[in-house]
């Protein structure tokens, strides 16, 4: 019996790694894609030892969008599930003044991820099945003074995934949008996050695996975030603009 195959884009991120472990534990063979992929050798060995599944490494640069078609064509096998955990938060204060930094955040969270998802979507559509998982963010649900550069790019990615899902829902391809909420990762290290709202990357990975299996559309790592975001989305702009959140 051949094992199902999962592709992890942004495999060096904490969420990417956790998702790789989760799918490997479910018996999936794993393709890890990131820049300087060979530095993921220890992770490859670790996953192969723990779960006795094959792992391959693939050089991938989310910002080099012109290489994305060749990247997908060059995969030894088209995966059944592709998870995009690419992202870059940067620092809002820097992003406000340094336009080059801001553009890099925008490209890393929208242009790059949307581009690779678009290429994979076409291949999956042609094959007639597959699941695309995009890790976006609750920051994309409403622009806030504290991180709207990152948030706006995530908003774009969320809208892109929504459109993709709409387009492919009758073509056998499923699209999952992940809005994790706070997660204890390298990206948020040093931030003072409320424990009850902060998930471990493994929790996010569990939720993603469940969503893939049950064909969920939009998921949060912790259910409480659905309520929080419902509330935040519905605050009138005239009030929201004066709030500090």
């Amino acid at each position, binding site marked *: 019996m051949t094992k199902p195959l999962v592709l992890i884009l942004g495999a060096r991120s904490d969420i990417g790694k956790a998702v790789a472990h989760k799918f490997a534990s479910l018996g999936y063979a794993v393709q890890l894609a990131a820049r300087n992929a060979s530095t993921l050798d*220890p*992770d490859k*060995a*670790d996953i192969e*030892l*723990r*779960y*006795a599944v094959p792992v391959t490494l693939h050089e991938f640069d989310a910002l080099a969008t012109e290489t994305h078609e060749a990247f997908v064509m060059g995969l030894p096998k088209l995966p059944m599930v592709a998870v995009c955990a690419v992202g870059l938060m940067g620092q809002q204060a820097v992003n406000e003044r340094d336009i080059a930094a801001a553009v890099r955040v925008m490209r890393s969270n929208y242009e790059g991820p949307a581009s690779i998802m678009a290429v994979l979507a076409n291949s999956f559509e042609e094959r007639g099945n597959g699941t695309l998982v995009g890790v976006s963010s609750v920051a994309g649900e409403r622009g806030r003074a504290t991180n709207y550069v990152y948030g706006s790019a995530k908003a774009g990615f969320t809208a892109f995934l929504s459109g993709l899902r709409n387009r492919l829902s009758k073509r056998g391809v499923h699209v999952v949008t992940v809005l994790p909420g706070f997660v204890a990762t*390298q990206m948020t*290290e040093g931030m003072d996050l409320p424990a009850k709202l902060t998930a471990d990357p493994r929790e996010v990975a569990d939720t993603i695996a469940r969503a893939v299996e049950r064909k969920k559309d939009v998921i949060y790592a912790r259910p409480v975030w659905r309520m929080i975001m419902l509330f935040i989305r519905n605050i009138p702009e005239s009030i929201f603009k004066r709030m500090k959140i």
Partner: protein
Amino acid sequence: MKLSGWGRYPVLDARTYRPRSVDALRDLVLSEPHLVARGNGRAYGDSAINTSATIETQHFNRMIAFDPDTGQLVAEAGVLLGDIIAAFLPRGWFPRVTPGTKFVTIGGAIAADVHGKNHHKDGSFRACVDWIDIMGADGEIRRCSREEDATLFDHTLGGMGLTGIILRAAIRLRPVETAWIRQTTIAAPNLQSAMAAFEAAQDATYSVAWIDCLGAGGNLGRSLVMLGEHAECSDLPSVQACASFNIKSKRKLSIPLDFPAFTLNGLIVRVFNSLYYWAGARKKGEQLVDWDSYFYPLDAILGWNRIYGRKGFAQFQCALPLQQAEAGLTALLTETSKAGAGSFLAVLKRFGKQNSAFSFPMEGYTLALDFPVNAKSLALLERLDKITVDHGGRFYLAKDSRMTAATLRASDPRVDGFKAQRKSQGLATLFQSAQSERLDL
């Protein structure tokens, strides 16, 4: 950040770091004045806390290589024994030595040189360690083993993380045919018969006793001695059970809140102990028990440390030499029973021979008790310390949270040698924990 050990006492405000690479770790080693590594925080007291820099090793958690011919696993220090079991038990391998929780890291198991129910036969964790990679105060990584840099190897096992930062290790797993244990329970009405049961069971692979520390008079030391053997396929009722190592993970209970301090008072523990003893006495003979229930009964209750309330609890664990074990245990149990202090988890175990520089076990008996932290039990612990010292015993640093430097020195002539070794190798200033400062190690 507020940090404590598993006993939740003491709680200290400590700065923590979680390096993601050897280079990041080296930067910390070369720039911080004092630090100590911390694995999964399962030592009970302040062994893995340094208030100025506690280095959490959770990102060093990768398995590196496994050799099915020798059972040797090479892994980074932050890998949990539970991870090893999850990965390798389905392939027929189990840790050679495991403590009573699977939530310990390899680094922590080496640092405390932990022991398991097979100590009388197989020795401490040291017995399964082939080599250790450890970063010294100069940021250099040295590989030590019985042959290579043996002094460093000897002092690192049981050295409580005070000889450097353990990065990687090669450990041996044992082949097993099934995931089941054949358990035999012996009801021992008093201490003498419990000890006799241990002496008669020297050939058993595993042996441990739950002991009723509130039993007095003729009931003093009343115990259930539990022996275990890895079951073979032919021991199992069906071929099916053998073919699969998968044992459904049981529903985990978790303690959602701190129990009020009065919950585990003497009366409740007394009633529990009686019921437990008689229930155990009734199921005499052999039973098949799955590995998780046999080795890690408490792991099924996540956060069980909260039953002692917000103030936490203190463990007492000593080892007594064989000759003085009976007298020492009798004195310890009499004192505990007299104080009426309810120790919920009381464990008695026969230790075998142990040869090492600073590890806890010695041939004889070990007794572990735990008490909620309050003035009364802290005073009792002082008395138990004295009884232990008077009977030639010593203390388990992985459990300690309140002993004095003087008591430690009175109990263990090896302390000054360990300290001198740290000094001569330039390790004493950098590698320090709240415990090592308290105990002047």
